[in-house]
């Protein structure tokens, strides 16, 4: 019974036996092999005949390099000639593709015609020759390369008030076109679904045009279409779905319906060329405040907590209103808070009491905070007393930032995940970013904040998530999916 499986430190002994048998004086040391198996950037596979290891192979890809290297491959001498080398290589190429590599490189001894033949048959071509590379013996090394065509995906985002069309090629960003109806919403004090949906319909053609022009591509060069089918405003989402389905049918492309929130986490892929997992993800916007534990972007996303009343961005809007400031609240509060004392008033941090830790450990609540600020202001106004808008703004903002980061880092600690990625429009808040950096540095947690255009709602992150699905070999969504305004994060793709 032949099978393959991912190698780990527990397999080290068997691997070393085979390593020494195959490579004798050129064999890697046990420490080197252990480091290879342990590295987050490698993928080592073992080939098993029942309990016996009869082969292994490994590849490595540095995040953001868009390139993978075949590190080693070995088949036990008494098991050669059965196509096992091909099988291991094929799995390594699937892995390389899935991490975004656009090329796979390897070196092979010039005196190993069987291996060279295998690699050529897989599509590798010689690109260089290193003379007398292998010693002793003055054997040349052939440097060979396989080019991988990553999928070109066009993604459509219309879950709220931004119409986004983005194009990616694997993990590479090619275009990110956006049209926002925020100005139309200013007078309403927030997003109005009907206003947003009307704006999406008007923006769809020009935004499509802009994205294709930016990527310098025609629609024929696009391999697939992705669209966010939730969570968000149903009427708005439906405009994006209509457009996406239309493009898919008109140009005979497969279509992928993806989760908008999960896409926010995946946006980091476009920043770095790879998804770094596992990670805690804190997504904060006008419509969402969610804390996620992501072990596998496509298969293992857990909602640790979310707001049980107002989203953080919404709280900013409401408090801005209380303070007589216009919409959108975030930037206005920031402006008002300049020279304000963040510790002037201790506003409540929602759901942080001991009694909340059981049911709402990672949930958020900004309703009490908002009420406290309003009470504070009303009390002073009713008594005709002056109060400092700057202090109130700064103290309110501090309360929001405090509770967001306290819970995010508590999650990182509890789940032993030393990585935090931020997403959503509220990330624009400088105080949040600066405090996140300070607390993460202190806790030894790696902080990732994609550039702002990828943090707010955008089409590129939708395209990126679609690309991840394709690179993992997932089937397209078909034509029957609809909009789901409360789509759960555990459902990355809809059908």
């Amino acid at each position: 019974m032949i099978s393959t499986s991912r190698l780990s430190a527990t397999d080290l002994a068997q691997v070393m036996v085979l390593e020494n048998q195959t490579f004798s004086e050129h064999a890697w040391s046990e420490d080197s092999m252990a480091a290879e198996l342990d590295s987050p950037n490698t993928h080592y596979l073992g080939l098993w005949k029942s309990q016996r290891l009869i082969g292994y192979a490994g590849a490595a890809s540095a995040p953001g390099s868009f390139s993978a290297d075949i590190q080693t491959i070995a088949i036990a001498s008494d098991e050669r000639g059965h196509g096992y080398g091909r099988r291991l290589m094929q799995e390594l190429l699937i892995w390389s593709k899935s991490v975004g590599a656009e090329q796979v490189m390897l070196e092979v001894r010039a005196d190993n015609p069987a291996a060279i033949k295998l690699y050529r048959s897989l599509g590798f071509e010689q690109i260089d020759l290193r003379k007398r590379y292998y010693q002793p013996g003055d054997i040349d090394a052939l440097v060979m390369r396989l080019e991988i065509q990553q999928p070109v995906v066009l993604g459509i985002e219309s879950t709220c008030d931004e119409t986004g069309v983005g194009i990616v090629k694997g993990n590479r960003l090619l275009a990110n076109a956006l049209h926002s109806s925020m100005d139309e919403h200013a007078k309403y004090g927030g997003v109005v679904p009907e206003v947003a949906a009307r704006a999406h319909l008007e923006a769809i053609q020009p935004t499509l045009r802009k994205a294709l022009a930016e990527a310098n591509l025609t629609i024929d060069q696009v391999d697939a279409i992705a669209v966010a089918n939730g969570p968000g405003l149903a009427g708005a989402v439906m405009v994006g779905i209509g457009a996406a389905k239309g493009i898919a049918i008109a140009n005979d492309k497969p279509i992928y319906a993806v989760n908008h929130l999960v896409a926010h986490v995946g946006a980091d892929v476009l920043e770095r060329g790879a998804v770094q997992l596992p990670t805690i993800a804190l997504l904060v916007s006008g419509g969402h405040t969610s804390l996620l534990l992501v072990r596998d972007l496509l298969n293992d996303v857990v909602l640790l907590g979310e707001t049980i009343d107002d989203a953080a961005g919404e709280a900013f809007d409401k408090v801005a209103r209380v303070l007589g400031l216009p919409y959108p609240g975030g930037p206005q509060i920031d402006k008002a808070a300049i020279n304000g004392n963040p510790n002037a008033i201790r506003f409540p941090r929602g759901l942080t009491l001991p009694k909340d830790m059981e049911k709402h450990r990672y949930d958020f609540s900004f309703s009490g905070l908002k009420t406290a600020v309003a009470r504070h202001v009303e009390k002073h106004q009713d008594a005709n007393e002056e109060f400092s808008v700057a202090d109130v703004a700064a103290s309110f903002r501090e309360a929001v930032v405090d509770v967001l980061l306290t819970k995010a880092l508590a999650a990182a600690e509890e789940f032993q995940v030393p990585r935090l990625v931020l997403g959503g429009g509220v990330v624009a808040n400088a105080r949040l970013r600066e405090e996140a950096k300070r607390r993460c540095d202190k806790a030894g947690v790696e902080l990732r904040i994609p550039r702002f255009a990828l943090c707010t709602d955008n089409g590129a992150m939708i395209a990126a998530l679609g690309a991840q699905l394709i690179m993992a070999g997932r089937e397209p969504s078909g034509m029957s999916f609809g909009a789901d305004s409360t789509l759960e994060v555990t459902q990355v793709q809809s059908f």
Partner: protein
Amino acid sequence: MILISDAEAMHQLGLEISRHLRAGDLVLLNGPLGAGKTTLTRGIGEGLGASGTVQSPTFVLARTHKTKLGPKLVHVDAYRLGSAIELDDLDIDFENSIVVVEWARDYVSGLSENWLSVEISREAESETRSVVIVGHGERWQGVKIATGN
């Protein structure tokens, strides 16, 4: 009138109310900022087996949840609207939904002949709320909800 001592009690009241709700019902919630309207709706949602978290729909105006009971739960927030909201434009499938509207005070007339009105008030500085539930229209004739503690 019902006296509610804390958030948990408000949640329970929501559960109690949910037992009387069916497709086509309209619940109008009124009360000041922080009174507990969303907490009450959360209780209603739990009673109906609603999917997803019941959160403030202020930003999105309406959130739709599937429920185990069958009809959709549509949670509307009229906070930002100054004039009569015509719920029809949110394309709510009224017949097959249970609709709960927060800040509904101004929009009673013209929406429906039947509705359940829930008024929450609180004394300044006090944690206690008082809740008054009144049914309007034939649908609610003779229906008693949470009569006293």
